[in-house]
């Protein structure tokens, strides 16, 4: 609640600033606002989505130059003349153009892993910059001047004090939209990009689409900032859109705190003020003029990356008294709010005893190594099947074949009668198969509730725009209600708003099961669910699985812990050296000589 007062106070201060501050300071605030808009996009892209771009300045340039071209060059073909001269039409054109360029660049580079994206952004950032400088009808290096001011309801924003309000209104709107978006079904998918892509895909999230979305949003923010810049300056030339600015934007994001929306404002503010201040001070130290502030900035960034890679915002928040902080705003957060939400529709569940999953002669070869050989198994609704075997027996490979992460070299896997050949792990999720991971994959800084809600991704359908405008609250409430229901079902009802990373390992594994259940599956695939658990936790897990079985769930678990398996499951398949060496009831397996040989070891 109280943070709302802080924000209201902040807006009030912004509103009166032009009345009390000298023009110079307002100009500075204008810059900060425009930079912060770009940096906000970077926070989304880099801090939240885990992608790095050095090319944001080029998008700013696209926005700027489009508007300058539309409003000040008079070079239009006749059929477009009606559009000339209006900054607002130019804004639309700039946003469309930027979106188109970003779509192409994104499609080219976002699938690439690791360093190709930042290197790619450097390359096209530079290319666009040189292009601005060399295209004759864009005025070359001298640029385009005499841009008209932006008019709002017939009132021309000519002075810095006037456009100031537009800049900050747009920035605050962008902050609001960003926060809304992050706090939604689409937002959870975006937040999963950083370190949770494999998990998100298995929950049915199209991670490439999420990447492209944040990339487009960040590009559009930059283009809008460029549009403001062009009409605040009333003049454009290539120099503010070069790579050095692209780097500066990234520095701003990092100084402020790349993972936080408000870090964008802090970073833009700090860097702009410091630059101003250093440009005044440094010439006295070094004797002559030059861009010596870059030395300070460079070293400062190194220092921040060494000491606090999360930027200064988290440090700032550290000093804020706890009473001023609100728990992460997770609308609709309070339990009673989504209690009234309608339940999500459920898929038709199979009858107990129906055949759910079947592997037929599955063989998987890696080069000369045969990891799985002629594997057959079946899982029915209301049954727990365990796949066991010594380490290195090929269980994980088999698990990957069954969950469509990998495709068999020969043979096939059928899920509810449908072959999984050519089906991605994402599509499998929509068919009703849900999985957990051997090494727990959750997003440690997100709440338990949000983590589990990712599991329900495919049960919602509202997109980016309704998320950004929070028009999807009814569905969001249903999704969170479902997540909460599953958490209560597995016994984690007391931890809804804890950070997932703060749970014990056993609870994290249970959380993964809740997340899987959230997808309304008819089959669960569990990869070593008992690994690393203490005795009590194992018992709790066994009880949960027993309960799910009695409700008709088909469960397959890969496990190393025989003790856990023997007392829980209905049937066991034993693997060694990639092959099935035995199958049967637990008692049969315990007395099977081949199994004894495998487990008691070959060193007899």
């Amino acid at each position, binding site marked *: 609640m109280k943070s709302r007062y802080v924000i209201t106070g902040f807006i009030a201060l912004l509103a009166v600033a032009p009345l009390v501050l000298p023009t110079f300071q307002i100009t500075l605030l204008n810059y900060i606002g425009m930079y912060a808009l770009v940096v906000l996009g970077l926070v989304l892209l880099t801090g939240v989505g885990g992608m790095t771009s050095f090319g944001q300045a080029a998008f700013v340039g696209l926005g700027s130059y489009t508007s300058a071209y539309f409003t000040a060059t008079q070079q239009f073909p006749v059929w477009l003349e009606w559009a000339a001269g209006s900054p607002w039409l130019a804004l639309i054109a700039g946003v469309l153009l930027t979106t188109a360029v970003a779509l192409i660049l994104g499609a080219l580079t976002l699938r690439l892993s690791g360093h190709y994206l930042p290197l790619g952004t450097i390359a096209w950032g530079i290319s666009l910059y040189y292009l601005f400088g060399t295209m004759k009808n864009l005025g070359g290096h001298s640029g385009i001047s005499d841009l008209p001011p932006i008019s709002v309801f017939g009132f021309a924003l000519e002075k810095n004090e006037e456009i100031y309000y537009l800049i900050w209104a747009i920035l605050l709107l962008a902050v609001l939209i960003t926060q809304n978006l992050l706090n939604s079904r689409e937002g959870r998918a975006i937040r999963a990009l950083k370190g949770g892509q494999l998990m998100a895909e298995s929950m049915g999230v199209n991670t490439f689409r999420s990447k492209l979305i944040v990339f487009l949003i960040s590009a559009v923010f930059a283009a809008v900032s460029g549009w403001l810049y062009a009409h605040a300056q009333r003049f454009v030339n290539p120099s503010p859109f070069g790579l050095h600015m692209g780097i500066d934007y990234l520095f701003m994001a990092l100084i402020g705190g790349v993972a936080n929306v408000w870090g964008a404002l802090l970073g833009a503010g700090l860097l702009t003020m410091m630059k101003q201040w250093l440009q005044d001070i440094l010439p006295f130290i070094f004797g002559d003029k030059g861009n010596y502030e870059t030395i300070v900035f460079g070293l400062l960034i190194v220092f921040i990356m060494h000491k606090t890679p999360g930027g200064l915002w988290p440090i700032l928040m550290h000093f804020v008294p706890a009473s001023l902080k609100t728990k992460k705003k997770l609308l609709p957060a309070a339990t009673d709010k989504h209690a009234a939400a309608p339940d999500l529709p459920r898929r038709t569940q199979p009858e107990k005893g129906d055949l759910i999953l079947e592997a037929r002669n599955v063989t998987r070869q890696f080069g000369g190594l045969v990891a799985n050989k002629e594997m057959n198994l079946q899982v029915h609704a209301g049954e727990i099947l365990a796949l066991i075997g010594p380490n290195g027996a090929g269980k994980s490979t088999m698990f990957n074949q069954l969950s469509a992460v990998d495709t068999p070299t020969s043979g096939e896997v059928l899920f509810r009668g449908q072959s999984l050949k050519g089906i991605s792990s994402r599509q499998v999720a929509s068919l009703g198969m849900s999985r957990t991971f051997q090494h727990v994959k959750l997003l440690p800084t997100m709440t338990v509730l949000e983590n589990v809600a990712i599991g329900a991704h495919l049960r919602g359908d509202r997109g980016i725009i309704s998320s950004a405008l929070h028009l999807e609250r009814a569905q969001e409430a249903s999704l969170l209600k479902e997540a909460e229901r599953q958490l209560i079902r597995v016994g984690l009802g007391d931890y809804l708003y804890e950070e997932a990373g703060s749970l014990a*390992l056993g609870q994290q594994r249970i959380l993964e099961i809740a997340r899987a259940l959230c997808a309304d599956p008819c089959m669960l695939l569990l990869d070593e669910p008992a690994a*690393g658990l203490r005795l009590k936790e194992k018992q709790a897990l066994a009880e949960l699985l027993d309960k799910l079985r009695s409700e008709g769930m088909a469960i397959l678990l890969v496990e*190393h812990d025989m003790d856990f398996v023997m007392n829980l499951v209905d049937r066991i398949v034993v693997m060694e050296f990639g092959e099935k060496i035995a199958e049967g009831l637990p008692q049969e397996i315990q007395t099977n000589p081949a199994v004894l040989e495998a*487990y*008691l*070891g070959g*060193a007899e």
Partner: protein
Amino acid sequence: MMTATTAEKTTAGELLLDIQDLHVSYGKVEAVSGVSLQVREGQIVTVIGPNGAGKTTLLSAAIGMLKSQGEVNFDGHLYINPDVEIMVGKGLGLVPEKRELFTTMTVEDNLLLGAFMRYRKGDGSYESTLAEVYSLFPRLWERRHQLAGTLSGGERQMLAIGRALMGKPRLLMLDEPSLGLAPLITREIFRIFADLRRQGVSILLVEQNARAALRVADYAYVLEGGNVAMQGNAADLANDPKVIEAYLGLASKHQELLSS
């Protein structure tokens, strides 16, 4: 297989590795919580326990691959949060679970790199160690010009062990050496442990193949949930119903097997 004679088993020398109250955490999850463990000179000690019990973490922390809290005493020196470079230089070797070979380099280069610390310190005698390793693993000699990535599973394990031996370790730690290996090869690898001990190399062995490990070892620790759940002479533990129960869930059958 031929087990080491009782006489060999009891000649335990000075304390070589002495870990006291070691804690290792991954973020907020503590994987090893307060483990104490000793290896005496000339001993084979094994650590067994279920997956996720913290066995691999324990070895990694002991050699300094992971940050830890607690004491690691090696060869009479105390190390807190040890440094890999120093530990390797002092004669601690680790054969990791995933082997971590230099797959695009030749077998011989892999072995030579095992002696990197000795070379750096100006110890030229690693050439003779190379000959010893080749005589221990004739298969590696045959394949010395082949890339490590082209070796079979068993040969890779031999190379990993050979590479570690090139550093002339006083204590060799092995993580799941039988992993994914056929019984015949496992047997051969275990035979080599006994040979090595005869040559004065002490061994700390983490194994899921509990039975084989308990046979070759003098002393054993059972790790569960990051703690030492049981410890004792390997022979005693091998007959302990609780160990059998925990590992195999096959208590009754196991008794038959022992008596057979």
